[in-house]
């Protein structure tokens, strides 16, 4: 007696589910994770990858089975059955993807909110006192000091670094120590806040290992806050076409333990801040 088709279908479904779960858990396509939220992004990617593998394999299998099993044999001039549709089936393959997608949407929203992507920037400025003063006087806030967007979960309590993007380099300014470098150093396990502004065209600040990217837009400062959690050197990549040397616009971020980071800060801080030629107030 042949095995009933329903049992074969069930077995194929179980096999497919196992394969996609295995693939999601065991095939790692991402680079090493070096920031606190990178792990949660990777977890989301694993879910997306599992669902994707299952869907692609399932549809491909159906396509191949159809092409082999239902191919027209020589001398067969008959048509297939005149099936015009099946309403319950249509409802099924409308409802199931819709539910899956809504669940995914809520899940990724939750991750994004956790990362700080839903932060409210209405009253958040890179230089709070001045802006508050201006607003209280009835002047519109200076667009250069308003934060227009980004990822922020630290309410300004994090260690600040000012990032300036220009054709074709990133420049890093440490406002508390008042010095500027071409290489970003960050303390391990300590929240930092990058305040990004651009001098010319749009750039994008991307560290693949942090899973974070933020456009750096002229006239619209943005913010990116996170906690690096793995020591090492990582590439900073410009991800927005910014001109002929876009591909060469790279920089380095060094994540080091807090003690060597402090040493690096001290080593680079100008010796006598008070007599520095720059007379502007130190942030």
């Amino acid at each position, binding site marked *: 007696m042949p095995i009933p088709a329903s049992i074969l279908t069930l077995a194929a479904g179980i096999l497919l589910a196992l394969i996609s779960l295995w693939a999601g858990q065991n095939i790692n396509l*991402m680079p090493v994770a070096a920031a606190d*939220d990178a792990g*949660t992004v990777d977890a*989301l*990617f694993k879910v*997306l990858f599992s*669902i*994707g593998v299952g*869907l692609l394999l399932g*549809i491909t299998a*159906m*396509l191949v089975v159809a*092409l082999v099993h*239902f*191919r*027209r044999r020589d001398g067969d*001039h*008959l*048509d*297939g*059955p*005149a*099936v015009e*549709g*099946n309403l319950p089936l*249509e409802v099924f393959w*409308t409802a199931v*993807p819709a539910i899956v*997608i809504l669940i*995914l*949407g809520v899940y*990724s*929203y939750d*991750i994004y909110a956790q990362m700080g*992507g*839903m932060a409210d920037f209405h009253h958040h400025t890179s230089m709070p006192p001045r802006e508050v003063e201006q607003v209280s006087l009835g002047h519109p806030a200076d667009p250069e000091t308003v934060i*227009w*967007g980004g990822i922020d979960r630290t309410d300004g309590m994090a260690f600040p670094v000012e990032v300036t993007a220009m054709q074709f380099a990133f420049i890093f300014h440490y406002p508390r120590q008042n010095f500027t470098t071409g290489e970003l150093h960050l303390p391990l396990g300590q929240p930092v806040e990058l305040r990004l502004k651009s001098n*010319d*065209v*749009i750039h994008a600040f*991307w560290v*693949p290992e942090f*899973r974070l*990217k*933020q*456009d750096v*837009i*002229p*006239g*619209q400062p943005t913010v990116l806050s996170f906690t690096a959690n793995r020591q090492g050197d990582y*590439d900073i*990549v410009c*991800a*927005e*076409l910014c*001109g*002929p040397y*876009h*591909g060469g616009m790279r920089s380095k971020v060094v994540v080091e333990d807090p003690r060597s980071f402090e040493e690096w800060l001290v080593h680079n801080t100008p010796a006598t801040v008070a007599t520095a030629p720059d007379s502007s107030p130190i942030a």
Partner: protein
Amino acid sequence: MTTNALPVSPHHREPHPVDVQHHTPWHEYFGFSLDHKVIGIQYLVTGFFFYLVGGALAGMIRVELVTPLSDFMARETYNQVLTLHGTIMIFLWIVPVVNGAFGNYLVPFHVGARDMAFPRLNAVAFWMLPPAGFLLLSSYFIGGAAQSGWTAYPPLSITTPAVGQVIWIVSVLLLGGSSIFGAVNFIATILKLRRSGLGLFQLPMFCWAMLGTSVLVVLATPVLAGALILLSMDIVAGTGFFNPALGGNAVVYQHLFWFYSHPAVYIMVLPAFGLVSEILPIHARKPLFGYRSMIYSILGIVFLGLIVWAHHMFTSGTPPWMRLFFTIATAIIAVPTGIKFFNWLATLWQGKLALNSALLFCCGFIFNFVFGGITGVALAQVPFDVHVHDTYFVVAHFHYIVFGGTVFVIFAAIYHWFPKISGRLLNEHLGRLHCLLSFLGFNICFFPQHWLGLNGMPRRVAEYDPQFQLVNQISSVGALLLAISTLPFLINVAWSLWKGVPAGDNPWQACTPEWLTSSPPPVENWLHEAPLVTEPYDYGSPEDAMPVTTVQGRELWSAGR
């Protein structure tokens, strides 16, 4: 109980005994013809010419990326090449061919009309294409082409050499205008020129796809035109609409640009969906599964397609609520799209599949587009998109959609309708070779690019980290295979035009009205009255049909027939 084993519906018969071979004089294809069929072929051939140009540009990109250094061409030239490649492939190949070529050739047949509603406007729309294309190409030779990508984001597009950028804008405005003229014509033709007795819900699916597409074109393209005119004023007249240095807002341009350019994806894929819905039932010998749900999913895609644009801007500093809204809207568009793919699979299931080039290209399309759709749903999730936005992951994703999706359908459609257009069949062996090479070349070229993006390679770069060299070389080999895959196709078309097997009027035993006339069709489309086809997918035998060649009298007798 049916008495007839072979379902010989009226449409299966050869439609008319008149055997008039009509040949359009060759010079009409180079002139201001008002015949929708001539215009369709003009679009197809012009589009294919630009496909070869765009492909050559893609080849230059892949050669540059064989090594991590910028050593094949100057960096400025590289940016010009990638800008031209994107612009040509979208505006001069895919949009004009799926809309202009197949829309013009097929829609009047499908609605039972002898031409489009506005033949002169139709010809004008086509004749805007060659000047726009040659203007765009010529910009390379006069001061250099635009360098800011097909997206032309300011302030970069304001600061790169002005001549190339302004020519780019003029060219895209012409092409957008052409597209709008075409869309107005399709809407009028489908709604107003239907043969009497032909209802909207009796139309072939391609007409619904063209109706939906044309609505998108009419609603979205003017927004792009407006944005580009403002951008050109920023460049030429020193205004500050998008120039932050003059108080402008660079992000507003992105909103306006993507308000058109995301629907543009559906302007490219919806007609392709329509073509697949025409091709599959004929070669599977089954009705199109779920006719009504196919229509509603087109309408759903049209509506949702208009409200997803900001998913291109998740890292641009848009307000948080916007990211939430556009995530859900974008992901949910997979639902109506998914309906279409499940319906196509159900159309194939239990059919009698002729494994010819047209059907195989459609199956390649299904695989590639499902792949691109899955990565699309992933990209809609903001936390993931933040990582892969503007990387090779995105490059791979949209090539799976527009190349693996739409271009595969264009080839399927050429294999399917070439006999109607030319009166001769294409060679199937060369066709299947073309399909195999395209499928392998395409996947070898673009599949590895997902990994590149995930691991840190941004898009639009002439130089990259050496760790990515091997995978880039694999991708370039795929591109080479893709280039080679064009050769059997070109040989096939040239040889078949000259010596191909005569096709007859209806080689596929199809029901739709374009097959119910001679091949090639006469100027009037049908010498007699236009046929009334109320069931365009009237294929399939009733479940209890008996094969007419083997059935014996006693079986009929015992079955009570």
